[in-house]
């Protein structure tokens, strides 16, 4: 069930998934999620890390309302939802500009221009997705998610398979966009460094079936975290993950 709060601009996101199972092709039941529950404050960014194949994408799909076949409850704050999938999922037959405007028909022209400028996409607005590199296509997906001015933003490994320098730049752009306008963010990543650099909170998931094995708040605004802080935090978290596993 996906319910929306009747009112309230700063409502939290409440997730409580008791169980999610698939029936495999062989007929056997496969538990993917086993009790994952958390509440995100309005404007909070949570990063999720865990072994690959542990059910993170399944969890995001449930929260996004794409999968209703589970036991539990998700209460999303009212307002729009923005999502960046693992693949860019752009319409190949529409230009970059049309792709963004399709989901955000009422977007303010000046705001859109500024958004494209931030993501360095201004020169590509009239291009088709097939003419873009993966890094550029990922940015368009990010621009699309921000163009709807979301209350909740779901990011499923948005920087995977990009080279390190480009990933760093896109992380900075993401941090800038999130700081400008409060939005509740769920970020799935396999990179603990990325998680402690960006998030206010780090939720560690176990191997399948996924459970929450650690829920670590990360102190301080992300702008003020020095490289030394980040390295320390990263070690702490790595140790925590090891001891919990």
């Amino acid at each position, binding site marked *: 069930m996906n319910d929306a709060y009747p009112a309230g601009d700063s409502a939290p996101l409440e997730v409580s998934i008791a169980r999610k199972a698939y029936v495999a092709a062989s007929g056997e039941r496969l538990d993917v999620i086993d009790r994952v529950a958390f509440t995100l404050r309005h404007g909070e960014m949570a990063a999720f890390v865990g072994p690959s194949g542990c059910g993170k994408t399944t969890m995001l799909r449930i929260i996004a309302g794409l999968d209703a076949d589970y036991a539990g409850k998700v209460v999303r704050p009212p307002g*729009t*939802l923005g*999502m960046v999938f693992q693949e860019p999922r752009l*319409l190949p*037959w529409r230009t970059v500009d049309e792709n963004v405007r*399709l*989901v955000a028909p009422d977007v303010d022209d000046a705001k859109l221009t500024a958004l494209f400028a931030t993501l360095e996409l201004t020169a590509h607005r009239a291009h*088709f997705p097939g003419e873009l590199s993966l890094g550029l296509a990922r940015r368009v997906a990010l621009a699309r998610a921000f163009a709807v001015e979301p209350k909740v933003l779901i990011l499923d490994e948005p920087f995977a398979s990009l080279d390190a320098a480009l990933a760093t730049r896109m992380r900075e752009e993401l941090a800038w966009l999130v700081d400008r306008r409060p939005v509740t963010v769920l970020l799935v990543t396999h990179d603990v460094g990325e998680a402690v650099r960006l998030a206010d909170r780090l939720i560690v998931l176990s191997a399948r079936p996924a459970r929450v094995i650690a829920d670590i708040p990360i102190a301080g605004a992300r702008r003020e975290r020095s490289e030394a802080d980040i390295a320390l935090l990263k070690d702490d978290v790595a140790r925590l993950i090891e001891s919990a596993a």
Partner: protein
Amino acid sequence: MIRLASLALFVAAWWGGAHFAGERMLPGPLLVLDAIIAEARSGALFFHLGATLARVLMAFTLALALGTVIGVVMGRSRLADRFADPWLLVLLNLPALVVIVLAYIWAGLTEAAAIAAVAVNKLPNTAVTVREGARALDPGLDEMSRVFQVPRWKAFRHVVLPQLAPYLAAAARSGLSLVWKIVLVVELLGRPNGVGFQIGIAFQLFDVTRILAYALSFTAVVLAIETFLVQPFERRVSRWRLRPA
């Protein structure tokens, strides 16, 4: 260049054939051209071409529209597919002549019966082609439009229809040539005008010149539609595909 040479070879072969077979069996190109000009001068050519063209367009539009709806529903719903599949198989294998004769018996020698009979002949073809397209729709893009709450009609226009475009173009191509051949039979059997009616009269008089004059004129019309309508449409909808530079 090669197309011109091929056309020239065709005319030359026709000329040679006419020389050997005699003008009664196969009149030469010039005789046929004279007949076309004479029919055009009297206005009869345009009257009959127009009648046939109107029937072709109506039956074609009807078959394409209904076939697309049926194909999309069958491609998206397994229940509808299993229910309608036997019907489709029967229609696909029902000879055009049987449909036409039954339509004339049941509905009288009317325009509506003629157009419906042609449309019924083409409809299963379109449905089968479009069904394949609907089965191959990208679920990732469907999820994207659901997450961003793109209204249904907009999603159909911008997300679904472009994915169906190649299948629709294929159905339109094969449809146009099939439909005009069947329209001629319908006209021969029960209409007081049109190319098929004229060919019926010419057959009774063994007037091969007239048969060729009408057949070739209408072939030219179909070729013009293909070159000036169908092909530009295809180029427009596939403009996003990468062209070799």
